[in-house]
């Protein structure tokens, strides 16, 4: 009897132990997020103790590594912004168009083939896109525009923007396809029964209903573009350039982070720490975008009472 009791106790302890292990594992994911946040904040604070925060977000000159180094990130933000804009100008129409074709026009069989094919685009490592942008797209753009008598840089924002856009197509198309298909069929039927054509039904009924989901996908795409590193490191420039000319070379937040941390720099110098200040901005912006995107998708799900997205 006693042996049985002790065995039972033993079992209980074991159960508790396992549960504690599980909780610990689950908590590590949280630790990681905060690890990322704090490790970045910590170094960023150190940077802002050496340099002015206001100049960082509003200054127009970024010149690390020299005696009179300046850290005004505005041209870096503008380059990031413009390349992201180009990427979305490519990814949004093509991604959305593909999603509409797959969900509204293609037979289920064709769709089940097309979707994984498109998702291959998402599985290609970004370093590969970077190589493609640098070696194929950039020279093409230079040649193309020189034919028109316009000079373009080999590190043009256009080249990296386009390739980045292609990379983001599946982000937009996959999620949009899911939300478009989640729009109840009764709405399509209602519109068609009123004598609307298929395209009118899609444009005026289906897409507006799916809009929160589509916006959510777009935001996710933007967030991906902002954080994309390899394509811009390999195909965009290093020069902070406050310009709207997409044929010029531009630099981005991620490029400058890499540039600041690669090579033998002293870790505690503002040159190196500036990477963490840029990283902090990137972290905050992408986090906010993600929160918005998740909130929108949740709203969409609640509206149509679906829980499979």
């Amino acid at each position, binding site marked *: 009897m006693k042996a049985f009791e002790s065995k039972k106790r033993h079992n209980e302890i074991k159960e508790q132990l396992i*549960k504690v*292990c*599980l*909780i610990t*594992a*689950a908590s*590590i*994911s*949280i630790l*990681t*997020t905060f*690890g*990322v946040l704090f*490790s*970045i904040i*910590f170094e960023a604070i150190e940077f802002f103790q050496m340099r002015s925060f206001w100049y960082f977000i509003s200054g127009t000159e970024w010149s690390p590594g020299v005696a009179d180094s300046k850290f005004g990130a505005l041209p870096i933000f503008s380059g990031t912004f413009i390349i992201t804009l180009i990427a979305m100008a490519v990814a949004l*129409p*093509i991604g959305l*168009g*593909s999603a509409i*074709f797959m969900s*509204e*026009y293609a037979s289920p069989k064709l769709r089940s083939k097309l979707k994984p*094919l*498109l998702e*291959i*685009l998402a*599985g*290609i*490592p970004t*370093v*590969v896109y*970077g190589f*493609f942008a*640098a*070696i*194929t797209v950039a020279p093409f753009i230079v040649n193309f525009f020189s034919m028109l008598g316009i000079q373009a840089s080999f590190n043009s924002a256009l080249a990296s923007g386009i390739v980045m856009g292609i990379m983001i197509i599946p982000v937009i198309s996959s999620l949009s396809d899911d939300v478009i298909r989640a729009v109840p069929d009764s709405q399509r039927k209602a519109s068609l029964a009123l004598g609307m*054509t298929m*395209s009118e039904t899609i*444009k005026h009924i289906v897409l507006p209903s799916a809009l929160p989901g589509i916006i959510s996908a777009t935001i996710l795409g933007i*967030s991906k573009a*902002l*954080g*994309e*590193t390899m394509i811009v*490191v*390999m195909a965009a420039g290093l020069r902070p350039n406050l310009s709207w000319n997409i044929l010029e070379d531009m630099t981005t937040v*991620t490029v400058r*982070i*890499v540039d600041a*941390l*690669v090579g033998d720099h002293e870790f505690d110098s503002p040159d190196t720490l500036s990477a*963490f200040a840029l*990283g902090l901005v*990137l972290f905050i912006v*992408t*986090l906010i975008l*993600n929160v918005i*995107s*998740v909130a929108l998708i949740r709203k969409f799900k609640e509206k149509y009472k679906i829980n499979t997205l």
Partner: protein
Amino acid sequence: MKNINNTNNNKNLSDNPFYDPSLTQRHKSARRFKIFTITCIAFALSFLVFFLGDMITKGLPAFQQSYMQIDVTYNDQTIASTRKAIDKKYRRIVSRAWLRNIPKMVQESPELMATTQSTWVLVNHQVDQYMKDHYYKIKNKELKIIEDMKAQGKIQLQFNSIFFTQGDSKIPENSGLKSSIIGSILTLLVTMVVAFPMGVMTAVYLEEFADDNRWTQFIEVNINNLAAIPSILFGLLGLAVFINLFGMPRSSPLVGGLTLALMTLPIIIVSSRAALRSVPDSIRQAGYGLGLTKVQVVQDHVIPLAFPGIMTGSIIGLAQAMGETAPLIIIGMIAFIPDSPGSIFEAATVMPAQIFTWAGMPERAYVERTAAGIMVLLSILISLNALAIILRKKFEVKW
């Protein structure tokens, strides 16, 4: 009312009560819209085809390398000064890397000593590029020799085994993927050893044990956010925490693997949860009916059934980690690593980082190597994904 019998077959437009000229325009616009969507998907897919074609045409030449058949003399003098092993006129044609290797060759096969052998020797990258009809820079004197040799069939393209048996090198014709492949394997080993158990445990906790309280919701939101953090920021974490705080060795597979593990975690968690959720409750109820405890039910009945799904997700996570470059650059895994790392503490590079390094090299011969490296990397990634799909198909829900 019209008479049914004679209007029935009437095809005259004016008699067609459903004729509506305003519809023509709308149908046209409907057709245009459909064509637009088809164009979109056609563009995306043709890009894929063009891109793969581009990589293959650029990369295929790297799987062959030019060799030249000449006399090589092995003796003490040539071992001391290897460039004397060959005729003077070939000095600007033969690869430095090959000559450098002569002492080792003699050491491996001593019977070579004091002989002169007609041997296929590796030529340098300029000659190789010439042989492949690429851009080259060769002096006229050498060019003539090469053309002669080519006419005699004494210089030709052979399978490039160096590409798989050598590590990185500053001499293009001597560079290969080996050290980066080994670096990738070591790094991913660390990644999986850390991420797999942690991810599965988190999933099991959230799916089977957690009550729906604030803490659980917080964890869920967090996992979601973790998945959305740009990969480069994980590099910052690795640098600030693993290297600077914990003092782990820079450029090592250990740091790289840990960094990638944190990135892979959300993928494994999400897919494992889906797999656990697809195990029907009846299985759990049956377990409880037998008087088993919750831990026993989960451990012995639920996890085994969910395992194929968990594996599928983990393989996809692994494939993603394998292609990741940005965070590894930050923690220094793009160092020049000619020799394969022996342990997870030594400096190493990984395949995508090797591709990145080669892409930045000025010599033309590295372009084909970069593209060939990409072909190898993509083949591995495709195989991994195919494996995941096969697993999923094979163990597709049986209940």
